[in-house]
């Protein structure tokens, strides 16, 4: 039976808490959030195994720490967990923060703990699906990921910022800076989201994917946006973000070769982003608790046994899809 500490009870964090308490293997879940009102309203609804905590200290006797706090606050909490010798799962989707979390690799290896970077919808499930799809190739040349929709307010703010900020792609063996809001492309997501115009943005996915696919030529990430989103991207958000966005989707496309044949494979998923992120993080938590992750800092594209994790995820209600009939993409 495991003892888990969860930082952050926003749209994603509250879903992680609910998913974890529905799991038999969790003995105690301590939740911490800077907003006392959130703690007071949520904790009583989560059952007797959940208790409220405070502060930033990490008890070395814990089995796992999950960080689902707003972007920009996750590195210091993750470092505290690593220093205490406790495995940690993070949910950040901010480029600079993901880079700093990946830099915890040496520290994590020294303390022999895994640091899972970006265990959400995208990055997270997108990285896992990319790794899963790569098993069908002899050689992967290109990985292209895209997402539509946002989770809670923090996610919506990050989405807005990302569209107006320079992004990074991996192209021909080097990092390339790309203007946010450029590179319009119609991406076909699973129904009911369907076709959406997607653009480059400050997304961390290439940072997580490129190192895991040696020899890959191109890694790109895009996010869906409307024309109004693009025009208002350089400005502050004009309206307060909604408590939670609607249905969202991700699409992961790999291009490569199988023998002499060129092949394209596309996977996707459709779900409310915060729900999917909560399910993904809790599924990863269960796999971390059973010792499936090696020490070091990496994203979910580093997972070898993708099937086991996808099964755990499916049990938690998120079932990925794949596109069949890709001749028109070839």
């Amino acid at each position, binding site marked *: 039976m495991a003892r888990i500490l969860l930082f952050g009870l926003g749209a994603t964090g509250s879903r992680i808490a609910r998913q974890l308490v529905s799991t038999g293997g969790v003995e105690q879940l301590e939740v911490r959030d800077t907003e006392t009102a959130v703690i007071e309203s949520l904790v009583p609804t989560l059952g007797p195994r959940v208790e409220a905590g405070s502060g930033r200290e990490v008890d070395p006797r814990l089995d796992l720490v999950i960080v689902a706090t707003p972007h920009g606050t996750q590195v210091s909490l993750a470092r505290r967990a690593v220093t205490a010798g406790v495995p940690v799962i993070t949910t950040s989707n901010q480029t600079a923060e993901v880079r700093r979390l990946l830099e915890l690799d040496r520290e994590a290896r020294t303390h022999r703990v895994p640091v899972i970077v970006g265990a959400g919808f995208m990055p997270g499930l997108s990285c896992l699906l990319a790794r899963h799809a790569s098993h069908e190739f002899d050689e992967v040349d290109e990985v292209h990921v895209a997402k539509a929709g946002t989770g809670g307010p923090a996610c919506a703010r990050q989405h807005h910022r990302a569209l107006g900020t320079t992004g990074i792609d991996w192209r021909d063996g080097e990092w390339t800076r790309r203007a946010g*809001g450029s590179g*319009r*492309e*119609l991406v*076909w997501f*699973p*129904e009911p989201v369907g*076709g959406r*115009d997607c653009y480059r943005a400050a997304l961390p996915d290439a940072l997580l994917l490129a190192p895991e696919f040696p020899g890959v030529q191109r890694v790109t990430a895009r996010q869906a946006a409307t*024309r109004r989103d*693009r*025009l208002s991207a350089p400005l502050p958000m004009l309206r307060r973000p909604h408590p939670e966005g609607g249905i969202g989707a991700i699409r992961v496309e790999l291009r490569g070769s199988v023998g002499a044949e060129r092949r394209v494979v596309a996977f*996707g998923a459709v779900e409310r982003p915060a729900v999917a992120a909560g399910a993904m993080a809790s599924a990863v938590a269960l796999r971390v608790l059973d010792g499936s992750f090696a020490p070091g800092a990496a994203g979910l594209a580093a997972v070898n046994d993708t*099937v086991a994790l*996808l*099964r755990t995820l*499916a049990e938690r209600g998120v*079932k*990925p*899809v*794949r*596109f*069949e*009939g*890709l*001749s*028109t*993409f070839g």
Partner: protein
Amino acid sequence: MRVVEEAPMGGGLLTLIRRTMLAVGAGLAAAALIRVRGTGGVAPQTGGWRELRGDDLT
């Protein structure tokens, strides 16, 4: 006797400012047009999404 009309003091400067603003405005309008317009791709004509089945997860 010839009378030479001269522009009022600062007239040249105002013209310059007006023309600059016009040029900047036209540039912004063109940039906005390029940013919001454009053609998308082509939706897939065949195939479709299907949920991962048991044999996909073995």
